[in-house]
């Protein structure tokens, strides 16, 4: 690595010229990151081969890739993934709907505002997975439990964000809506909701991340319900059978879905609030 006294190339001078590691900076970003990935995988594989760790506690990238391909090809990973995604989607749908209703109520009435403020302050700091034991008591060993904790995880960060969006609608925008004769629900639907969209999208991003962590954690604890367990259950099962490459394959699947969903939301953001100039400098 060259010494840090070398001047930073202009391309990366954005960070105040603080980074200066020479030729490395001059490579295109895609190449830099791929090279790093390959290097990390190399170190991983080398460690497994050289250190001779027990295959009952650790797996090399090659075995993981094989398990991953086998899991997706043979279908062992397909079912759990769909189950988890279905629970996440259902939970998010319910959580989002409740968040919109609660926030609309908070905008329309003083009582709703107080209620939302209090509930958010009380429930939001509580990790949703912590209420899993209670939920199991209430709903029995049913998939409803998982949907419930995911909806709860998604609801509060979304309500906070949508509420912020509703409260910061420009006064002029609201007056325009009111002077067109819009009242109550139509004003909320046609003015508040779209005007709050930048905050709502931010809320969905936070919300889904909370929901995703919660559903995996809950599945680890909860085990299987009904016909098919989810990804959390898959990992736990694989560990039980000491099938370590499968554990890793499950983890890789979880990470990849996380990346894919995050990309999806970035795309959604670019097609809406960025295109409408409602969010500054959101280029990727």
């Amino acid at each position, binding site marked *: 690595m060259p010494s840090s006294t070398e001047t930073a190339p202009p391309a990366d001078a954005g960070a105040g010229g603080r980074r200066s590691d020479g030729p490395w900076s001059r490579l295109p970003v895609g190449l830099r990151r791929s090279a790093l990935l390959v290097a990390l995988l190399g170190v991983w594989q080398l460690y497994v081969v050289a250190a001779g760790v027990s295959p009952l506690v650790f797996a090399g990238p090659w075995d993981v890739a094989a398990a991953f391909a086998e899991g997706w090809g043979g279908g062992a990973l397909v079912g759990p993934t769909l189950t988890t995604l279905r629970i996440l989607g259902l939970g998010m749908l319910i959580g989002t709907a409740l968040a919109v209703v609660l926030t609309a109520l908070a905008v329309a009435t003083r009582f709703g505002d107080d209620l939302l403020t209090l509930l958010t302050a009380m429930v939001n700091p509580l990790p949703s997975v912590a209420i899993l034991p209670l939920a199991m008591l209430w709903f029995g060993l049913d998939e409803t439990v998982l949907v419930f904790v995911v909806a709860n995880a998604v609801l509060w960060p979304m309500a906070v964000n949508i509420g912020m969006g509703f409260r910061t609608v420009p006064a002029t*925008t609201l007056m*325009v809506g009111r*002077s*067109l004769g*819009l009242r109550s629900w139509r004003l909320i639907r046609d003015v508040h909701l779209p*005007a709050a969209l930048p905050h709502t999208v931010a809320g969905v991003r936070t919300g889904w991340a909370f929901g995703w962590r919660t559903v995996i954690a809950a599945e680890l604890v909860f085990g299987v319900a009904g016909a098919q367990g989810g990804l959390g259950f898959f990992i736990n099962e694989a560990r039980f059978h000491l099938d370590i490459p499968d554990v890793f394959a499950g983890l890789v699947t979880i990470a990849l879905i996380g990346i894919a969903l995050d990309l999806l939301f970035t795309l959604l953001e670019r097609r809406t609030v960025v295109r*409408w*100039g409602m969010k500054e400098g959101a280029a990727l």
Partner: protein
Amino acid sequence: MGAEPLLSVDGVAIGYPGPGGRVPAVAGADLTVGHGETVMLIGRSGCGKSTVLKAVAGFLTPSAGRISFHGAEVEGPAPDRAVVFQELDQLFPWRTVLGNVAYALRATGTPRDEARARATAQLELMGLGHALDRHPHQLSGGMKQRVAIARAFALEPRMLLMDEPFGALDAQTRGRLQAELAGLARRTRVSILFVTHSIDEAVLLGDRVVVLGGRPSSVVETLDVAGLDSPDTEGFTAARRRLRALLSDDREEAGRAVLD
């Protein structure tokens, strides 16, 4: 005008909630706007001229007096009094230029296809035919205000309420839009209540100019400026001189009030 005026504001007082009770902003506003008339409301900044306009629009409720419009007391905002604001964010950013105007028509009960057609026609009339599919953030300040004016006219309101719509524009754009507005007003015979702090704008666009002054404010004088639309004529200069005197009196008074 003879017949009943379209808008009459009688002894209207409006206050804002402040620390230690309501702070009176307007003490006694009296003015009328006749059918097809353009009345300019002028005063120094902070004199409450926008407050009066917001009360006429129905956004504020007067603490005393009465506002009657088209034979009925004003009870809230309604599309028969279309409002054009100074702020450049009065267009919905999530709708295109065409969408903004067409939505206003749809919201007031026009069927979808007719709304699109009428909105397109109005925008083309105002030279915005090339920008129908753009979003507001892609427009210049002057174009944004032009779209807002097109939206207001498309609604075919009985009255247009304009709250310093050209206040945030550069002089050249302002002049062009003033001329366009005067033309549209002449053609459509719409009634206008127009708030401004520019003396030239008041004399140029108005049939009458209502001067608001004092603190809390009331109507100081009403000046007839109908037909004065060329800044070089003697009438224009005289009206300008008179308004300048009235507004600077108010400045001295306000200065004394601060010293007290």
